[in-house]
């Protein structure tokens, strides 16, 4: 019994039950089913974790009443809430505006869920668990994600509602603005590792200094800067707070979701959470060492558990941010991307080039390498930040006497 390859053994055992002509089909079908099941449940429990954590951050209790149907005494801390939510969403009336473009109105939620699921195919969930191995896996990931913009446009335009259309255009402006820093923050990793394959990128981070200090990309100056830019851009790409103005209550009603109800509305949120989970998985793969254990002596824990643990940690971090930060205005949002994140990401590209070219520096030169690399990104960060916030700080507060 080897925990590391347990999922593979299970799959091979099921595949062997079928006639050999069908085996390739069952093989792929099982991979797809596994992703849908695991991340479907992950989505369900992300929603309950988000509601509970946000409630705790706001000094409330959160949902804690829903129990099991036949055991009303058993509450399970409200953990069955997502299933109740799902039943509610399915049984709700589906209202389609009379003048809406019926086809596009229907297609938009389908497209957003389908394409946000595609990204999972190239994430290495464990040492032996990679659904599809591609040479150009990173390119595939971003290509799969590019259709969500089309879906938002379809939703906004197909609803035949001025609010929907205006908000969809704003959402598109946000997505396009932040796609640039997102991709630019990933390029340094490709530059240093010299590959687009997610498997090779994870393997590249699998060493330890003294057996305890992992060689993850986030622990290098360019990797740390890249990870921070990636986090901000990923938040904006998945419409999460503090960048949730496409659908925020205080903005243009509910944005491109205005004319959606029932299960279609739920599908949009499902697509959004899938997108966030896939992007977090990519962040874990590129910067946080993927399925690698943080210390050499912890390697006995199966690699897929490490991956899922890091993924859950990142999601909780995003929920924490949602409970803490205030929402940006649309002009602040675009300014942050174009004037701050994009120049820093470009500088970080040069930083990674420096890091890749000085790979041979050892001894005291290694310290100089760290210092120069850190200076390349920290000095512009401070200068740029000071220039952009000139005139806004220090803040003065005036109170009624």
């Amino acid at each position, binding site marked *: 019994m080897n925990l590391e390859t347990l999922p593979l053994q299970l799959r091979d055992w099921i595949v062997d039950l079928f006639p050999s002509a069908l085996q390739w089909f069952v093989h792929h079908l099982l991979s797809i089913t596994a992703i849908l099941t695991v991340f479907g449940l992950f989505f369900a429990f992300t929603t309950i974790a988000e509601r509970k954590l946000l409630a705790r951050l706001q000094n409330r209790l959160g949902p804690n009443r829903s129990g099991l149907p036949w055991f009303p005494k058993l509450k399970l801390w409200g953990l069955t809430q997502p299933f109740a939510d799902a039943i509610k969403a399915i049984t709700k009336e589906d209202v389609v505006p009379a003048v809406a473009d019926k086809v596009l109105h229907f297609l938009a939620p389908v497209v957003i869920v389908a394409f946000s699921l595609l990204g999972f195919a190239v994430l290495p969930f464990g040492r032996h668990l990679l659904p599809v191995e591609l040479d150009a896996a990173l390119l595939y990931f971003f*290509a799969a994600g*590019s259709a969500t913009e089309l879906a938002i446009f379809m939703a906004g335009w197909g609803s035949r509602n001025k609010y929907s259309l205006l908000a969809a255009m704003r959402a598109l402006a946000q997505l396009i603005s932040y796609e640039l820093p997102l991709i630019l923050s990933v390029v340094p990793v490709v530059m240093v590792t010299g590959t687009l394959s997610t498997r090779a990128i994870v393997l590249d981070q699998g060493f330890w200094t003294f057996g305890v200090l992992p060689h993850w990309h986030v622990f290098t100056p360019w990797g740390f800067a890249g990870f921070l830019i990636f986090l901000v851009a990923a938040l904006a790409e998945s419409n999460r707070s503090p960048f949730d103005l496409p659908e925020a209550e205080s903005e243009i009603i509910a944005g491109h979701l205005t004319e959606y109800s029932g299960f279609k509305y739920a599908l949009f949120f499902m697509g959004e959470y899938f997108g966030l989970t896939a992007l977090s998985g990519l962040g874990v793969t590129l910067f946080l060492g993927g399925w690698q254990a943080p210390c050499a002596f912890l390697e006995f824990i199966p690699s897929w558990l490490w991956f899922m643990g890091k993924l859950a940690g990142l999601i909780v971090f995003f929920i924490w941010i949602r409970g803490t930060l205030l929402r940006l205005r649309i002009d602040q949002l675009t300014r942050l991307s174009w004037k701050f994140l994009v120049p820093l990401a470009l500088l970080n590209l040069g930083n990674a080039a420096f890091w890749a070219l000085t790979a041979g520096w050892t001894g005291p030169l290694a310290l100089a390498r760290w210092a120069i690399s850190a200076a390349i990104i920290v000095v512009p960060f401070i200068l740029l930040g000071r220039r952009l916030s000139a005139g806004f700080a220090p803040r003065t507060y005036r109170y009624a006497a």
Partner: protein
Amino acid sequence: MTTPLLLIGILLLGGAGAAMLSRNLIHSALLLVGAWAGIAGFYLWAGAEFVAFAQVLVYVGAVSMVVLFAVLLTRQGATTAPVEFDSFQRAVAGFITAGGVAGVLLGAILGTPMDGPAAPAPAAITVKQLGAQLMGPHAAALLIVGVILTVALLGAILIAAVDKPEDPAP
């Protein structure tokens, strides 16, 4: 081997044909996106993984947005294309241009020897080899393309950015 190609061809030509016939500009644009995705499918079928993903990223992700934004910003609400020609001259010019392009393409297709001996299947090219080729022998072409795109971007900003006088202070 030919069934997938046939399916891709039907998707591609069907999408392009429907885009041409549709009177609704937004529908046309979205159908065109489908045709572009069909081209990406063809690249995948031909084994050019990298080009296929780049096609999806650039055309389905970026060019489609430019097309849709252009339609929405210039049409001001009316998204139905006029059925008749604007003027006789335009119709003639359109037919001459389209005919010229079609002639060049047909000439190229008919001029290609089709029944030659099948070339031995080349070994699968990795992305790394592709990158080395682009950055080595073809670096100049890559740089020129980059400069052209930058100039186009700056030109577009210059045309679009009209300095309006600030609102008079109340």
